[in-house]
């Protein structure tokens, strides 16, 4: 298909050296090197994309001293967020989809970690999106105590407690760093909300570190 050569290359049968007779063959070699370099570059990008934060270690039930109100008869979802984490936009989008699909069965709390020497979290894009989500409450975590109560480390981390306050899911709801779309985490949450057994209880979290 790639009919490049108008000249032929010779193979030195003695030592197996290929003599490049013309520029088309040289261009082909350059193209291959170029392509390999790009593959390497994308490999690095993908590696970063799928590098998850530390796995969460949530408590088996909803922390009683958490300043987050639960509603009787409804599941409670808590998402930890760094206000400026760009990867959490995708997590926010997936949460919007979940809340849109399950308006009556779950109440969400979006806990924003207020960082030192940073503007107030209420000024961030994520906070402004959070307050728009129905049945969701944006909460400021000034000193990181709330995230510590739930054992969260990474922005975008989600904890789902059923109506009885039992932990049913902990992890991320994006398939890779900053990517929207279907994910095992969102599927698991949906399964819990649908009273189906979840495929897994934990998924990797892709986002910025909260601490």
């Amino acid at each position, binding site marked *: *298909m*790639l*009919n*490049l050569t108008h000249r032929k290359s010779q193979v030195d049968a003695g030592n197996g050296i290929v003599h490049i007779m013309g520029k*088309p063959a040289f*261009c*082909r070699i*350059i*193209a291959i090197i*170029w*392509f390999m*370099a*790009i593959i390497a*570059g*994308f490999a*690095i*990008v*993908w590696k*970063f*994309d*799928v590098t998850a934060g530390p796995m969460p270690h949530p408590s088996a039930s909803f922390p009683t001293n958490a300043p987050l109100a639960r509603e009787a008869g409804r599941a409670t979802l808590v998402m930890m967020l*760094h206000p*400026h*984490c*760009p*990867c959490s*936009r*995708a997590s926010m*989008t997936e949460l919007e989809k979940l809340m849109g699909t399950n308006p009556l069965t779950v109440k969400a709390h979006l806990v924003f970690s207020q*960082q*030192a*020497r*940073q503007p107030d979290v209420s000024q961030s894009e994520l906070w402004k999106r959070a307050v728009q989500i129905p049945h969701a409450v944006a909460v400021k975590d000034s000193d990181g105590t709330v995230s510590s109560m739930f054992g969260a480390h990474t*922005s975008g981390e989600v904890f789902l407690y059923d109506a009885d306050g039992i932990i049913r899911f902990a992890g991320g709801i994006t*398939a*890779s760093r*900053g*990517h*929207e*779309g*279907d*994910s*095992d985490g969102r*599927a698991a949450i949906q399964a819990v909300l649908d009273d189906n057994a979840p495929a897994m209880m934990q998924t990797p979290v892709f986002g*910025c*570190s*909260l*601490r």
Partner: protein
Amino acid sequence: MTIPSTSPAIELPEVIQRSNELLAGHQQTIWRRTDRLFAGLLGFEWIAGIILALWRSPTTWSGPAASVHPHVYSATILGALCIVLPIYMAMTRPGFILTRHLIAVSQMLMSGLLIHLGDGRIEMHFHIFGSLAFLAFYRDWRVLVSASGIVAIDHLVRGMFLPQSVYGAFAASNWRTLEHAGWVVFENLFLVASCVQAVREMRGIADHRALLEHNHRDVGRQVQERTQQLNDAQASLMKAARSAGMAEIATSVLHNVGNVLNSVNVSATIVADRLKNSEISTLAKVSELITQNRGDLANYLTHDERGRLVPDFVTQLAVELESEQKMLIGEVNGLAKGIEHIKQIVAAQQNMAKKVTLRTAVDAAELVESALAMQGAASMSQIEIVRNYDKLPRAMLDEHQVLQILINLISNATQAVRETAPGKRQISLSVCRAVTENQTMLRYQVCDNGMGIAAENIGRIFSHGFTTKENGHGFGLHSAANAACEMGGSLTVKSEGINLGAAFTLEVPITFAEESVSCNR
């Protein structure tokens, strides 16, 4: 839509070769243009990717600490890497097959990068399908294969090692892969068909144009051949015309010389008769008598009956011989003039080919008299000549051309009056000056009271071959009219009809040396 060609010439090897050249040239133009288009597009996409990264994910955080997000590096460095070689090839080797395949691969890689920088949003995936449509601009379906191949390789490789990055799940169904592939195949089906159809149309255009060029060359060749044939035919016609002209000239020479030869012949006959019957023989007899009576000459001359007559006889003989000599001299002079005129006729006809006109200062009235003298005394016998000559200065004109015309006219007039009763035959000759439209003309008129010209023949009297004479050739008046026209003049005729005579008028443009009395028209 393919342009149909039913001409058998489309199967000719040279037409096919030319069609291939035209198609290749057209394709090269498209490939070069599209290469440069994509070079610009790739550059634009690179810049857009950097802006997107800086806008959407400029920094990554670890608690309060921020650092440059890897997306910025990937947009800048990886993006540059994706486009550098294709852009280089597009600028240095546009139209090269490797160039457009590299561009196709690069465009798909940029799709992947932009999707990555755009958080994998579904809208960013439109870039893939849009890129495939843009790649169809090449009208080369193989480029679409390269581009689709990159998408397939990406899905296969990431599907094997990072399935969650492609399908959002760690265990993706094969149906998902087919679904993704299906949409690409769906679009490619139409794009490939479009490319094939486009190339087919380009082939049709190339065939049509090659055929037109072939036919144009063919027509050009035929035009050249026909032009050459026309030139050859024209040369033949000119040759024939020249031959005809030469025949006409020869006929003219013969006719004009014939006219003069009549008077030359008459003069020669007169001289011969006169010499034959000369009184010189009588002188010989007288000399013999004197010789016989030499011994007693005085007595013979005074006392002999016959001797006494000798002195008076000799005196009378001297007078007769003198008279005879004068007549012979006159006839010989006429003979010499005739021969000179013949010489001039021949010279004039020869000069006609060179288009040389010899104008000399002549006495207009003398010219008429010369023409009259050329007729010979015998032919002019019993014809009254009426002369009406204006006193004119010498005029610059072609003497021999005019003389020839006058000889023709006077000769015709003498023949025309032959049927008129003797004693009543008359020919009037006049010469005067006329001024027409600011030009001075010399007007000769030869009028006779002879057989005249029928009304139906007036229009044809100067036509070649027309004659009313029994032994005529129809050339004299035709030649005279042509000669008049060549001199810039005219020869006209008037006749009241049969037996009512005719008047021929010759006008030629001249210049006079002095002013004179002019006649009115």
